[in-house]
């Protein structure tokens, strides 16, 4: 009998282990089940912050997007012939190497985040006016972020709008969270993509707060983005009025000459309409750190110095204007006495966020600055014969160089000013392309070794097939509906 009790006790103990409810219902503790992740307005705010984490990462504004804008043009180039940077510089991308496709993936990840927030925030019930305003602001941010993503996809993977009035292939329209089975949608035209971008921005402008919101879209950031989209589209009257509204009514003010160099080390300055935030601690290698563009621009890194340096052509822009504050961003590494003794010039623009104790590796990427509103107003004003067009250009010129004299507004003058102003911010390539200009890179000027490489092209304009990026072969193998850009082999 005793033994039967013993058996019963042992079986009892082991059964007891199981019988506590939910033996097989487990939940993660290092992440949160989606059903529990978005139930309060606070959760929605955290999810709204999540909209920006990929944008600031090296795959987009932390590095690759910027390189696509500067290195495919004539502002920056890699010092040595290897790595991703040199492939971007020489336009040596092909559909087989999916590295350049990582931007596409990162944008769609952000679009998915925005779509998820747009869909789920609907179910949040809020009653007070301030809560409703907050909820609307989060929703507005999701629309604005989505607009930015589609705009960048259209710029990277589609031909410039004015090249063929948006007839080329643009983005894949994904407006809600989709399962893999619903995701194989063909690309729309650039024109259709632009119309979606403008719709999203209209929605966003109706929802967003006009207060400053460091690191996040607010009304003014969306408005300035709208001005830029109109400008790219050739809708100059709308571009002009949107840019002027930002200049006139927003709380943002351009940084004066004396503070210009220090501005790049500041967070939340009035110059920045939208800057993305990198962390001040931990994970420096990834979070705006080691593999971000800024690290490669910096000279005093752990290896042999900056991997990316400004072209001589860009440096020569200041040959006759020594008083231009931006000329001071050029530093020379003397072969005898310099830090690395390379005899190269480097760009000392992104100095790291000084007042937060950042090091050179940590820079908040600038997406929208008030200076851009001035230059958009100048360009769109010029196209619509607005009388104040030249003044917008000259304000920016004189901010940089107080000794400069006023000049009449021309496209060349605007493009030159943009080139000087936006180096390292990812504009130059798109600025030349959207106006149908030609990018020329001359080896005899730039003294680099790339002329010999097969992919290098010293001069091209918007009819060259490589001004748009390829769709990755690996993606098309599982998603054949996704059309390849013309000219690329799979």
């Amino acid at each position, binding site marked *: 009998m005793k033994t039967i009790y013993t058996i019963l006790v042992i079986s009892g103990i082991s059964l007891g282990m199981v019988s506590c409810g939910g033996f*097989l219902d487990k939940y993660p503790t290092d992440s*949160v*089940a989606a059903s529990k992740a978005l139930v309060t307005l606070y959760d929605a705010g955290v999810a709204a912050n*999540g909209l920006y984490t990929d944008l600031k990462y090296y795959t987009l504004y932390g590095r690759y997007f910027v390189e696509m804008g500067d290195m495919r043009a004539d502002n920056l180039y890699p010092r040595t012939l290897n790595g991703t940077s040199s492939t971007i510089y020489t336009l040596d991308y092909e559909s087989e190497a999916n590295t350049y496709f990582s931007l596409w993936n990162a944008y769609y990840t952000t679009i998915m985040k925005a779509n998820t927030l747009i869909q789920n925030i609907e179910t949040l019930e809020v009653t007070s006016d301030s809560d409703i305003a907050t909820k609307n602001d989060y929703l507005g941010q999701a629309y604005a972020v989505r607009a930015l993503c589609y705009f960048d996809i259209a710029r990277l993977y589609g031909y410039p709008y004015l090249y063929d009035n948006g007839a080329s292939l643009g983005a894949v329209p994904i407006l809600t969270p989709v399962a893999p089975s619903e995701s194989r949608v063909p690309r729309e035209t650039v024109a259709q993509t632009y119309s979606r971008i403008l719709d999203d921005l209209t929605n966003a402008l109706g929802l967003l707060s006009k207060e400053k919101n460091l690191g996040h879209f607010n009304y003014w950031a969306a408005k300035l983005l709208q001005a830029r989209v109109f400008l790219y589209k050739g809708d100059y009257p709308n571009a002009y009025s949107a840019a002027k509204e930002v200049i006139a009514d927003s709380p943002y003010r351009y940084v004066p000459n004396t503070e210009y160099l220090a501005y790049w080390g500041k967070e939340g300055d009035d110059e920045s309409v939208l800057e993305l935030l990198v962390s001040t601690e931990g994970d420096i290698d990834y979070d705006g750190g080691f593999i971000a563009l800024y690290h490669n621009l910096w000279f005093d890194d752990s290896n042999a110095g900056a991997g990316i340096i400004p072209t001589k052509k860009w440096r020569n822009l200041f040959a006759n204007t020594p008083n231009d504050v931006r000329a001071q961003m050029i530093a020379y590494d003397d072969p005898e006495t310099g830090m690395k003794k390379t005899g190269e010039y480097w760009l000392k623009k992104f100095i790291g966020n000084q007042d937060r104790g950042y090091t050179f590796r940590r820079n908040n990427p600038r997406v929208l600055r008030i200076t851009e509103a001035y230059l958009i107003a100048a360009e769109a004003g010029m196209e619509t014969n607005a009388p104040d067009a030249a003044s917008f250009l000259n304000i920016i010129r004189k901010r940089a160089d107080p000794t400069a004299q006023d000049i009449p507004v021309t496209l060349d003058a605007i493009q030159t000013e943009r080139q000087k102003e936006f180096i390292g911010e990812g504009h130059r390539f798109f600025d030349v392309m959207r106006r149908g200009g030609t990018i020329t890179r001359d080896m005899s000027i730039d003294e680099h070794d790339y002329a010999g490489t097969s992919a290098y092209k010293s001069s091209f304009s918007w009819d060259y097939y490589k001004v748009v990026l390829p769709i990755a072969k690996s993606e098309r193998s599982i998603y054949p509906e996704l059309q390849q850009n013309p000219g690329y082999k799979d």
Partner: protein
Amino acid sequence: MKKFISFALAVFCSTIMLAQTTVTGTVTNSDDGKPISFANVQLKGATTGVYTDDNGKYSIDVPANATLIFSSMGFITQEIPVGNKKVVNVLLHPDAIALDETIVVAYGTVKKGSYSGSAAVVKEDAMKDAPVVSFEQVLAGKAPGVQVASYSGQPGSEVLINIRGFGSFNAGNQPLYVVDGVPATSGDWSSGNISTSAMNFLNPSDVESITILKDAAAASLYGSRASNGVVLITTKRGKTGKLISTFKASAGFSYFAYDNYPLANDAEAEELHRQAWTNYGNDNPSVWRDYGSLENYVKEKVAENYPAKDESKYIYKDWEDVLFRTGVSQTYEYSISGGNDKSKIYASLAYTDQQGVVKIDYLRRFSTTINAESQLSKRFKIGGTVQYSWQYQDGHQDGWASKDNPFFMWKVVFTERWPYAYKADNSLVLEPLNPNFSTVNPIASYEAQVNDAWQNRLLLKGQAEFSFTDWLKVKSILSSDWLYVRDRFGWLYGHPNFYAYSDIGGYMVDNHRNVDRMVSSTTLNFNKVWGKHNLSAMAGWEAERERYYYTSVGKIDFSYLGATESIFGANFDGGYSYSREEGLLSALGSINYDYAAKYYVTGTYRRDGSSRLAPETRWGNFWSVSGSWRFSNENFFDAKWLNDGKLRGSYGTSGTLPSNYFGYMAVYDYGKYGMLGASYPSNIANSGLTWEKNKNWNIGLDATIFDRYTFSVEYFNKKTTDLLLDATIPSTTGFSTTLMNVGAMSNRGWELSLNIDILKKKNWDLSFGVNWSTVKNEVLALSQENEETINTPWIWKEGYAFYQYYTRNYLGVNPENGNPMYAEGSFYKKGDIVDQEVILKNGTVIPEGGTMPKDGYNYAPTSRENASSMILDGKTSIPKGYGGFNVDLRWKDLSFSMAWSYKYGHYIWDEGTEQLANDGYTSYGQNILVSQTDTWRDDNKGGSIPRRVTSNNQGGYYYSSRFLKKGDFLRLKNMTLSYNLPQNFVNKIGLLNARVYVAGSNLLTFSGLDIDPEIQSSGYYYYSMPALRSVTLGLEISF
């Protein structure tokens, strides 16, 4: 002692018997004339008896006209009437059927002869003297269908076992480990800076046997975890008889087993540098303009990049001596074993200390095992196990971590001309002289490096067995398996590579993990014989819960030189903790029937429910049926030469659970945006996620003929469907991959083994065994038709192997100009009109605009940039065949054994040669393989190595089939010579047995590779520590 027992028994017997006389005698084996120890000698009608001693001698008191029963396991029992005899010597005849060994199988034991599944058994004898930390290392070449690969030659690192090919893309290809009936935690739980296997907790001497379950019939009782096979480990139990103590001590020495990466000598290296710069200057005249002449330029460049020794300034040392030493290992073990009819106990205590070959590597381990069981009453049996081990490992980072990896530094970075210290003050040279590597003198960096791991493991098990009748019993097991792993990695204040982290003053990360697993099972066992019908059945349930806790703390800015704990870091660098819980609930059952020991049928069933799957899909059924026909027992098959013969076959299913614990669930991750909290969806929901399904059939033939030859042949076919794969999904979902069940893969092959008892005499034993296995692995389908998943250097594609290489095809040196040539590599389908001149593999030229006669690649030679990757048919890391053979010889008290293992028909991806055989890509002063000396030159146009040029962007640095090498090898894995000291001498000094032995491992290796051929199963090699050769001396006494 033995005499005492006999005496006691005699006294005991005499108290109940009348008219006693004493009978003595010897029991011997009729086959070889050897004495049989522990044979039972029993008086017919009595319940007790005596056992023979080591010399087969016995002594028993008997009444008049008694009959004695002589029995021993594996022999035919004999009854002998004593009559008036005082001495009864008995020859016992081996019993062919009873000889059947009992083997441990899923949820029980079985006689080998009646088993219809496929299982390989490795016994204690095969591993007892091998100088290894972990038992898995001994399995190489010993069991057909089983491949073994070490992650690294570093002491204590994980050993990977691969059973019958690869069944899974993502869910792992490691078998389930079961220790004494309880599924155990296995694998490497460290952070990866140092490899540490959870299975190290078992001292190999505590292992009685290992059974490797290979087919469905054998393994599917383990259901959703059985697809990759199951390794059943049985630890030693107490043996009936007096308490025997055994003490074993061994000491060994080790060093590299192979001439890894033979390097060019100093003069050759200098000459190769000169060639590289000369050719570079010739190709680019502009580079030497400022130098006046090419000669000056070359002279200067060589002096700069391969600077001559400056003995007046520096002290030079042999880097091999600086970094490495002869490894010394010591092991001490003490165990006791014994028991009576009722209670048995085995207990052991062991200490192992291994100093690695790398000067900073070492391992220490204490381990103990206690197995006890007792028959409390006629019906009730209870037992328990305690196993505990403590292990500490200190070592280097292996593989990729080139700055710290001593093997990399020795082979690649440190040339003979790399100075060790300054002559002036004897201070170490700490400038990174090679701009490619920030490596500096490791003596300084190792001082400020922390890289270690602790493992504590405690297994507790209690079991109780109650017999309702002699044919029905219930058995319950409750066990707890607790594993604690702590590992640290840090570069502390004062580390010479510090400037790489110039904004922090050192860092360290300290990780703690607890894996706490509880398993409970209760089974009801039925076993009954009706005449020639034999029926047994088992039914039960099992519940398993694993809890995992993880804590990690990272600190930076160490202000105290020599600090080794994170508390000394001034600033926080990141830290977190989380836990995870998993449940598995199962019902299981099996039924076995046999008729007249001729026909056997078995069915098994298991139903598993797992918390890793969604509620709708978490329950699954796994089953098998198998049968065998023992034709040798048929009356019509009366062949004297056939001792035993059996045909068997099985079919069944098993599964593999996702390695991701919540892969089916949509979840949000939490991170940071600036300093703000941020959340975002991180996994797309897939509520249909299920396990991988494995369908498995196996047929085999086992036979023993002429008392001498035992062979076994089997063929298996294993098909896995619903493979778990982090499948690429359209990026428009916002995710790049999701865990899905896609595709199918098959593994099939032959397994053969043969054992020959060549000699079986009183003084001589000689046996020879060989086994050979093949496996053909094929990916049958991926998620989409024509999908290619490229994971350089491999590709997954329908119709090719799991580890199919995909790279540029190197075509050798162009004798005209010395440039390397690569196949252009465009793929055309049959009937395609080619857009360029195409050369097929067989040399056929198809002009531009011509039609392809069949699917194929273009083999036209071209430059590296213009060559595409292509599938190289037949080049996979999966061997065509592998196995081993062994010879065991005994002459009187001397025994000798050796075990070889071999593998052939596979290719390895020797990525290490990107550094050592790069045709001049890196012109900096690093080492060069001696095979690089045969460069193409004007005076050596037949050179096998392309023309050497600085910054060579065509050559060996770039991925191509030059990295692929035939991996064939033959290796003498273990060799042991052992001598049993003469029994009468041993007895005189009060011992039962004494033995001395010398054992060696990896003593001889035959391979065409530049690097040790035992490489992980993926075939990939990049500077992990190669295998070691070791020689161990040992002494074992028992008393």
